[in-house]
């Protein structure tokens, strides 16, 4: 039990990093990356709450949920990246107007 | 006998992996780091794969280990080549339009 519980703070910290990244980073791509980090944190929490049984194999339901989540996350990321590319194409900017006032990032 | 051989192979593999990592950390420039990494790591992986091959539970498993090693070898060699190439192009400022063209004087393929 204690071996698994390391992953609860780790997952929470990943969620924190992701949140900070999504709130503070100005570049859209960085926000997408932070979104993925946050998702990974959530997945980690999900699996850490279902520690492996005696045979060492993790909960199949949690595994299936996470696999579904990974695939959805890549779809959302790809959509975001495409929109960011289109936005860059049209405006020449890599960050949204409300973030642009703050600074130039890349 | 088999056991001693396994220990020996694993020890050698560990040595090569550590050498590769050490090289990656300590060598002064990128190209020599590529050199350290691609050579030492592939050898380490090969030795480890050989050690595990001795104890594979079936022929299929043995074949898979062999395939993984070959694939890792190809991947490492190719990426080493690609990365080194980019690195050279960038440091010498060679126009990138020559990228992919055979070097001057190379025999036509």
């Amino acid at each position, binding site marked *: 039990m204690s071996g698994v519980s390391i992953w609860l703070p780790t997952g929470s910290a990943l969620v924190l990093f992701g949140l900070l990244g999504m709130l503070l980073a100005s570049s859209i791509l960085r926000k997408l990356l932070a979104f993925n980090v946050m998702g990974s944190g959530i997945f980690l929490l999900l699996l850490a709450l279902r520690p492996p049984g005696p045979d*060492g194999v993790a909960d199949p339901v949690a595994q299936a949920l996470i696999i579904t989540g990974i695939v959805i996350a890549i779809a959302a990321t790809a959509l975001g990246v495409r929109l960011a590319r289109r936005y860059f194409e049209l405006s020449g900017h890599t960050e949204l107007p409300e973030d642009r006032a703050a600074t130039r990032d890349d | 006998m*088999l*056991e001693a051989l*396994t*220990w020996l192979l*694993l020890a050698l*593999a*560990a040595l090569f*992996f*550590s050498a*590769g*990592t050490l090289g*990656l*950390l300590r060598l002064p420039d*990128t190209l020599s*780091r*590529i050199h350290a*990494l691609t050579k030492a*790591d*592939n050898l*380490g*992986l090969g030795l*480890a*794969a050989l050690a*595990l091959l001795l*104890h*594979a*539970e079936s022929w299929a*498993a043995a074949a*898979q*280990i062999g*395939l*993984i090693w070959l*694939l*890792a070898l*190809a*991947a*490492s060699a*190719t*990426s*080493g080549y*690609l*990365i080194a*190439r*980019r*690195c050279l*192009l*960038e440091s010498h400022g060679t126009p*990138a*339009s020559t*990228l992919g063209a055979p070097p001057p004087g190379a025999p036509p393929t």
Partner: protein
Amino acid sequence: METLPPTLPLALTLFALLLVLNLALGLLRVLRGPGLTDRLLAAQLLGSTGVALLLTLAALQGWPSLRDVALVFALLGLLAAVAYARLRAEQHRA
């Protein structure tokens, strides 16, 4: 597992621990850079050490699926390097 010689699990465990240590040290280079190239190189180290680690664990724990993960590691490691090299080429030309 029962066919393994008695001291083999110990050897494999030691080897796995050493690989994890290597991995952690290699991460220093990923973090320190300095350039993009060095980081990618270190990520490649992560890939090949990961392959070795997965193969070792597959034998140690008797999970054949871990070898499949190693296979995917080996394949996808190439993709990252190729993407890097090709796209940087693009960038240079522009």
